[in-house]
């Protein structure tokens, strides 16, 4: 059995080097070419003598991104995605948090990477990848790194949290997914997720482990996903439900529109039943799988295969199913006792070791089961209901985390920026509007006295937060409504927006 992600790639690299591994806007690459490019990058990294468990990867959807991931893994490190379009301020904070000593980049993004390195005080190597696809480098075994990648998620204290994922975590996931999806070398996978999303790891390594072809759409191809599927004879689809929702809205989910699909998976948001029905008609030859899992439990950890004739879901939302056989999931009430409706705790080989160098935050959510002090679990903060068959249904969050297009957002992180950087006395951000359990945008409530600083407030958000965390609207109020406990009444804020939508008025607009 493979012990490293590199070993999964090594099989098709050596046995089918002429097979197409990667389709990019810039060209198509065989396993042989991609593998050679990865080895040349690995050689570069070893020559520099990079230290530390992680190497930053400052690229975007080009050959260096994919060969870079493999090269970093081969050279004995985990990769840490640094999306060039994220605010430099945030990237610098991530770099500092991670303790990373080196950034791998492509020629195209070299200036940005050097700027970032100069910005972060600590001494950083910037390595411009020399992704040579030709040559006959000898394939040395990979240097063993315990880690596969380090991803950062939104943190409620205003600082992103690092989640280090081990190779063993990913391999445990892939083993389950190989059983469920049974991918083969004839499969052609979509690669829709950004590499800052752990769901991209599913696309990339499930595909390569089977010797299949990974097809990366251009920005323009993303505008007509069904046409992209047809033109590229895609067989395996994976996206957030939001993408299917938009396809439906633009009427491109026509019956029979995607006949080549045999396996469709969704993750990251609630999956509405009506939507999945339409998807199933558009992709009549495809199985449809709903996946669920936080980054801390590696990609996805529960699965539910949707069948058109099965019992109705909960309030029109498809079940997230049961934990994988190798994983553990228990539903506990506030007293830590097993219940039908409560917080989902996850255990097993996919659960991460904790947050990167943040013992306090780790201790808050990586805990031992009250009933079994030998079993370490991750508390998801997701409230779920378990039905009589053991299928789980997502209900709500126990905290202020929301999802926008599958991106996990701690609203308090946005509030923090608005208060600390924008100078607002108070800030309350809510997800709105919400359709079928899917949040479409963010609205921030702020004091009246900063009304004329709306642009500065938004600029502060843009400088510190990724685009999907910048509020679409700012609404200025004299005070925040409070409930009987003296806490901010978020329901009242949402009701304000709902009633405005009902009457069509927009008086409070900034």
């Amino acid at each position: 059995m493979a012990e490293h992600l590199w070993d999964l790639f090594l099989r098709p690299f050596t046995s089918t080097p002429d097979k197409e591994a990667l389709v990019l806007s810039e060209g198509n690459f065989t396993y042989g070419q991609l593998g050679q490019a990865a080895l040349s990058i690995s050689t570069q990294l070893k020559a520099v003598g990079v230290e530390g468990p992680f190497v930053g990867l400052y690229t975007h959807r080009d050959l260096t991104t994919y060969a870079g991931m493999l090269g970093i893994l081969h050279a004995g490190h985990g990769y840490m995605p640094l999306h060039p379009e994220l605010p430099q301020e945030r990237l610098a904070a991530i770099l500092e948090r991670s303790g990373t000593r080196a950034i791998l980049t492509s020629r195209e993004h070299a200036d940005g990477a050097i700027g970032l390195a100069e910005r972060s005080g600590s001494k950083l190597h910037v390595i411009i990848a020399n992704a040579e696809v030709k040559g006959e480098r000898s394939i040395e075994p990979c240097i063993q790194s315990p880690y596969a990648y380090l991803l950062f998620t939104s943190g409620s204290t205003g600082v992103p949290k690092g989640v280090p994922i081990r190779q063993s975590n990913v391999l445990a996931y892939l083993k389950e997914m190989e059983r469920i999806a049974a991918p083969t070398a004839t499969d052609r996978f979509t690669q829709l997720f950004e590499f800052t999303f752990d769901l991209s790891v599913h696309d990339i390594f499930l595909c390569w482990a089977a010797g299949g072809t990974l097809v990366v759409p251009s920005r323009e191809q993303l505008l007509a996903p069904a046409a992209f599927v047809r033109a590229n004879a895609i067989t395996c689809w994976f996206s957030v439900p939001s993408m299917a929702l938009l396809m439906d809205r633009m009427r491109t989910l026509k019956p029979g529109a995607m006949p080549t699909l045999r396996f469709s998976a969704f993750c990251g948001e609630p999956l509405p039943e009506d939507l999945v029905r339409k998807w199933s008609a558009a992709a009549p030859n495809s199985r449809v799988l709903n996946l669920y899992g936080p980054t801390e439990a590696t990609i996805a950890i529960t699965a539910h295969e949707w069948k058109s004739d099965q019992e109705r879901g909960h309030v029109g939302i498809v079940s997230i199913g049961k934990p994988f056989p190798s994983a553990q999931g228990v539903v506990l009430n506030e007293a830590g006792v097993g219940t039908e409706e409560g917080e989902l705790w996850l255990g097993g080989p996919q659960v991460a070791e904790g947050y990167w160098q943040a013992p306090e935050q780790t201790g808050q959510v990586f805990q031992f089961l009250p009933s079994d002090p030998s079993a370490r679990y991750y508390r998801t903060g997701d409230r779920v209901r378990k039905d009589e068959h053991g299928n789980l249904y997502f209900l709500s969050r126990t905290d202020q985390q929301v999802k926008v297009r599958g991106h996990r957002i701690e609203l308090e992180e946005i509030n923090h920026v608005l208060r600390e950087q924008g100078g607002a006395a108070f800030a309350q951000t809510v997800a709105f509007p919400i359709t079928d359990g899917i949040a479409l945008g963010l609205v921030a409530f702020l004091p009246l006295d900063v009304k004329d600083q709306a642009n500065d407030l938004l600029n502060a958000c843009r400088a510190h937060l990724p685009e999907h965390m910048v509020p679409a609207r700012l609404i200025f109020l004299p005070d925040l409504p409070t409930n009987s406990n003296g806490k901010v009444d978020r329901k009242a804020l949402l009701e304000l927006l709902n009633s405005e939508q009902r009457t069509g008025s927009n008086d409070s607009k900034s």
Partner: protein
Amino acid sequence: MNENEVLLRLRTLLKPRLAQLGVAEKDVADTLNLTRSGVLDSFALMDLLAEAETAFGAQLDLDVLAVEDFATLRGMARSFAKALKP
């Protein structure tokens, strides 16, 4: 509504999106490809198109149109004006 009137209306719909992104209106030429240039991601562009469809009471078939016919303001205006013709 002719093409130029449609174009003006599209600019009105785009305006709040640009404000959120911190992009100056004058930097968005009629012929700028909104996604290739990175001004809007695919979600935001499709969202704009859906809003425009409601506003104009006309529909575009993205499976059939060339990208330039809906990814630039000029192309969008042309396509909507065509769809609106009696």
